[in-house]
């Protein structure tokens, strides 16, 4: 018996040829099925349809879509409004991502310090993330409101302004408002990533640097940031993707205005589709919008697959 291998034992005729793993993979596929069906129905099918419609002219005045090839894309190339939406998107994404990164990291460093009530404050920090984003948008709309806003009340109380300011009626004020709202919403997520990264930081290394006379900035620059590099990359990529997709807070806060000051690509697609009823043109912008999402998404997926 000592020389027998597993092949020498008789195999039950009822046993699966692929062994135990075969059954596991079938269960796995079955468990995946609802998600796959939902993904196909809610995301893949509409996306494929939008991709197709981008090659058609289809407005509410038409009974059926008319194939026009790449004419919608040619029209986009000549549309100053769409180009302006690209620029607005770039400004919004870069400022919102940078702002969240800086403040999220700062808050994580603070929450990593030992102090009384830290656990409670950490939990409270998650509040903006828990609140529905449209609720947050309305809270911020109230803060910035020109007549009843908290911000105006505070500034008037401090004597910094004489009359209430219409923050959401200037291009800069409206952009600042939508960016601040998004930063406020995203800080908890970024902070959680950074906090997780900070847990594995070698404290002895920091203590040694301190003994050598390193101040806060050198410690952050030479020790903490290099340690957080993988987290930083993930957070930046996720931030860019999330901000490129942003629609609800912007629409709830400014509806893309004043005039077109906060009309990012997502709002532009909505306006073309549901205010001007130009589904073909809106689909074409949507396709380009997805194209802007692809590089960061590819980068992120590659990191996930490689296990970084």
């Amino acid at each position, binding site marked *: 018996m000592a020389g027998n291998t597993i092949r020498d034992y008789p195999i039950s005729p009822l046993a699966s040829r692929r062994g135990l793993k075969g059954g596991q993979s079938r269960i796995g596929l079955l468990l995946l099925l609802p998600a796959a069906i939902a993904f196909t129905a809610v995301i893949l099918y509409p996306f494929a349809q939008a991709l197709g419609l981008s090659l058609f002219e289809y407005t*509410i*005045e038409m009974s059926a879509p008319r194939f026009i090839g790449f004419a919608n894309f040619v029209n986009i190339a000549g549309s100053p409004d769409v180009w302006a939406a690209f620029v607005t998107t770039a400004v919004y994404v870069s400022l919102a991502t940078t702002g969240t990164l800086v403040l999220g990291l700062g808050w994580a460093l603070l929450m990593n310090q030992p102090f009384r009530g830290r656990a409670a404050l950490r939990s409270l920090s998650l509040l903006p993330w828990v609140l529905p984003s449209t609720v947050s948008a309305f809270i911020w709309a109230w803060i910035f409101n020109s007549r009843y806003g908290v911000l105006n009340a505070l500034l008037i109380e401090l004597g910094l302004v004489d009359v209430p300011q219409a923050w959401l*009626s200037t291009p800069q004020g409206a952009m600042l408002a939508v960016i601040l709202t998004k930063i406020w919403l995203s800080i908890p997520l970024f902070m959680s990533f950074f906090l997780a990264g900070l847990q594995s930081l070698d404290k002895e290394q920091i203590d040694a640097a301190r003994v050598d006379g390193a101040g806060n900035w050198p410690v952050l620059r030479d020790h903490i940031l290099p340690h957080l590099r993988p987290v930083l990359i993930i957070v930046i990529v996720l931030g860019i993707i999330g901000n490129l997709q942003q629609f609800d807070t912007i629409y709830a806060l400014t509806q893309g205005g004043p005039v077109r000051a906060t009309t990012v690509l997502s709002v532009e697609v909505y306006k073309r589709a*549901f205010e001007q009823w130009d589904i073909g043109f809106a689909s074409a912008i949507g396709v380009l919008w997805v194209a802007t999402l692809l590089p960061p998404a590819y980068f992120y997926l590659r990191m996930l697959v490689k296990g970084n």
Partner: protein
Amino acid sequence: MKITAGILRSTAIVMALTTGIAKAADLTWMGSSYAEPANKPAVERMIAGFKTSSGLTAEPLGFAWGDMQKNIFLKARSNTLPEIVQLQERWLPTVANLKTLVDLNTVFGKEKLEATFAPDALALGNIGGHQWGLPVFSGTVGMVANKAVLDQAGVAVPKTVDEFKAALIAIRDKVPNSVPYPMATKNNGSIVLDFMIWNWVYGGRIIDDDGKVVIESDASRAALSFAVDLVKERLAAPEIDRPDSRRLTAQGQAGFYIDAPVTRTFLRDFSGKGEAFDENVLPMPMPVLKGGDKPVSVLWGHILSMFAPDAKVELDAPASKFLSYATSDEMQTDFPLALSALPTTKSARAAVANDAYLTNWAKAAGDARPNEVGIWSNAAELNQIVGEEVQAAILGQKSVDDAIGAMQARLSDSMAKAKQEN
């Protein structure tokens, strides 16, 4: 296999249940009035009355006024449009493109409809001889004043533009925290209506009857300059939409604004005083540029349209019976009045002739004209262009000349494109 069979069984049960729910009512009614707390009880009365009189049931479906067009379009795309839809008259040129919209002349007969409805009301649902909807309440969009605020500022109802501006200055100076005239400065749909009326006051037009864009005129420049100056002088304010105007007025912080007669019902609700607030609601003629000019207003109303898969419906179908009930004397002497609007049938108008508010509103209407932007099939794009350019001027992002020039160019492009497609 057992799991798969279970999933299939559950799906079948859910589908059977949802199909059953969908068929629980004889028809579905979709409208904005049902989504407005002030008007919801009146809709519920209509639905209940229909059940009592016909034994049929109607399921109400409410969407906010601003979301109605989007939902109509989405439901049309997924072939789930309800049988009856409440529309604002200015949406009709766009909705009339839908192939499932029923021409109600083919259901009720043109002669019968003409005999029943007041001509101005019936015209709200008519395009090119097709009766795409029956008017359910009507009126005009014009100016309304808050008597309590006027008294506080010590001013009378102004007749000319100069008197109007003097009244606004008095309100600004004597009523703390007020927005004397909450002109629409947010939301393209509202901005267009306010600008269109002031443009008429100054003798301008946006688009003439032949579809030619004529906004580039001295009159339109003067009208836009007037609006810009109001904001600069803090007589009007940024970030104002129609609901804001109503709330400011109900709170005694605004003297005048532009709205439809339904505004009284909103003011009753928003002031928290109910009918006791009515004494403050003064319909007034739109100020004129000089004595002798005729005040202007915009024809306005809501219609009920019918949708069917092949655009054909019999007279004894539940949806037809519902339209007959909604426009019967029983309903026309209740529903429009509850919403503070004019009834649409000849007999109901005669029956409510002693309603002082509606009579005053009708007197103040003056020269009531159709919405010159809303009548075109590309109205959605036209609204956006006018709204954006007027807002740009009001908020100081563009000069009046640049905004008017841009409007002329963009509107002309849009009209040319629409003509090409039609």
